[in-house]
């Protein structure tokens, strides 16, 4: 099979299969969790739960990421904050604000948006890759991370890292013909999409639950979150 055929497969049937697998997989996991049932909280609140939820999301998105050093724990382990923060920022910039990815979104959902110039996106993707490497090294040496990491953590890292690397190589034409590079990128993306519902990469779905629970629990006690 030549690169062109592989590419056709990876961005055609395989892509749609992986996409559907991801969506159904996540929906299934979400359903499994919700179907375990939620007992009603009969405790009378001292403060507003709703306010707690709103405040915690606002702080999590708009305040803490920009002034992390005010938190004690930042000073005790800044690497994980900076590495993790830059990695997520890089993902956002590349996947949402990079022109080629925006076009993929456009083809899927029907509309597009303004994007950032290529050099900025390119630098951000390089930063994301470096952050990932540092985070992996950190995971191998930090005593707590060593203890809590197993094959699952390594595979999750690998399947996120590969699309980033192949994407970067594709932009810079490193390691083969355009079709071959493109095909490699698409295959790694497809594998990632399949891996998401099978792993903890799915945390972005459950994040909204745990953060809301946090806001509720602190809000009902009238404590700042």
């Amino acid at each position, binding site marked *: 099979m030549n690169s062109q055929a592989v590419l056709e497969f990876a961005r055609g049937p395989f892509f749609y299969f992986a996409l559907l697998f991801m969506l159904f997989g996540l929906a299934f*996991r979400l359903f*499994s*969790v*919700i*179907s*375990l*049932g*939620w*007992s009603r*909280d*009969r*405790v*009378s609140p*001292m*403060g507003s739960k709703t306010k707690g939820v709103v405040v*915690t999301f606002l702080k*999590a998105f708009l305040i803490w990421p920009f002034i992390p050093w005010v*938190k*004690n*724990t930042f000073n*005790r*382990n800044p690497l*994980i*904050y900076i590495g*993790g923060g830059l990695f997520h920022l890089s993902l956002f910039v590349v996947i949402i604000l990079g022109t080629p990815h925006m076009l993929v979104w456009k083809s899927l959902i029907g509309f597009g948006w303004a994007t950032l110039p290529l050099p900025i996106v390119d630098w951000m993707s390089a930063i994301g890759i470096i952050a990932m490497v540092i985070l992996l090294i950190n995971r191998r040496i*930090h*005593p*707590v*991370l*060593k*203890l*809590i*990491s*197993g*094959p*699952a*953590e390594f595979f999750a890292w690998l399947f996120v890292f590969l699309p980033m690397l192949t994407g970067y190589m594709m932009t810079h034409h490193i390691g083969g013909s355009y079709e071959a590079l493109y095909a490699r990128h698409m295959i790694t993306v497809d594998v990632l999409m399949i891996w998401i519902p*099978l*792993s*903890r990469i*799915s*945390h972005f*779905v*459950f*994040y909204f*639950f*745990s*953060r*809301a*629970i*946090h*806001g509720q*629990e*602190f809000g009902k*006690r*009238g*404590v*700042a979150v």
Partner: protein
Amino acid sequence: MMSTTEKAMEAFVHETGGWVAAQLEACTRCGMCAEACHFYQATGNPEYAPVWKMELLRRAYEQRFTIIGGVKATLGLDKRVTDEDLAHWSDLNYEACTVCNKCSMVCPMGIDIGSLLHGMRAGLAAAEVIPADLAAAVTKQVNEGSPLGMTDTVWDQRLEWVADEWEVEIPRDVKGATTMVVFSSIEVMKFPANVAAIAKILNKAGEKWTVSSKAREIVNFGFYEGSEEHTKLFLNRVLDGAKDLGVKRIVVTECGHAYDALRWHAANWIPEASNFDVIHITGVLGELVGSGRIKIKPGFFDNGGKITFHDACKIQRKGGHIQEPRDILKVLAPNSFTEMTPNREESVCCGGGGGVIAVKAADPVRYASFELKIDQVNAVGAKTVSMTCSNCRLQFTDSVDHFKLDWKVAGLSQMVADALEE
């Protein structure tokens, strides 16, 4: 006959609703929670990372409720829980965790780790894999009504003595009183001046209050242990006393875990609990001082060196009474009251809560974690540390002795009582 492990697994599974599952699913295993834990900070032992302390709960959930978890366990990629595991995690959870919930303040996913760690305890308690001294204290509370040996007679004599010694009236079993006060045996047995102080304050305020000979112990060792059965048994004793006397509200005195259990959990286990307003004495003090029902002498504590305030995890961070002690201390010691860093909901636990102080084997880590507190207090140069929790106070007085510190450890109620305007 179920094995120990099966009992624990059953309890873990029982603990798991969508609420727990969603939070376990959100964990990215980033390990940041470790940095919040005072036991980890003090010892550097990676096993004290909160995420690791709840490892068995995670395994139970994944292996029982998720397809991937089931497959992984079958393939040997995820370990099954064994009896040895239970014993090991019992040490981690009862010796090196005060369930202070500081970890949830730093979790980037906002997971309420403290509640999950309580779930861990529930499993361990169901399997009866708990430290012998904690188990003995629970048994004592079941049989005698109090873990500190405060039997009916002892309670009776102690309160009589307090009333005599401090010349204060302690109304008993008054039907039709508005407020029922339930002291902790720590106060009655070890800090009796606190009992006298609270009585003095409530009398001064003209509060219609009473103690109940039925509800004489607020401490809840079942909640420390994590056993729902014991927790409910002890909660019911308090609620029955309140029901008999027909009071409207129950005041929990300077005890943190008890307040957490009665104020923030009881209604979910025992529906009648919602018939009563439950409030911590800190809230009452704030109310009385704020409304002017009692008057305290401004600056009364201003001439004895710097005073700082220690936030208790169950009364401030998990209880919500953060502002009241500060408002009061700003009146009592406007010039010498200084905040420690970190403070309020970000404060660091004393290291003795969650039943840890009752477990002898925990002594080394308990003292090690107190060294963080020493640094914080010394950083502001305080000579007096005020607090609203007798369990913290027990840890402070014991550690002050252990480390030979020249601090004064003061209960806030006692400070207020001392400074009351006649």
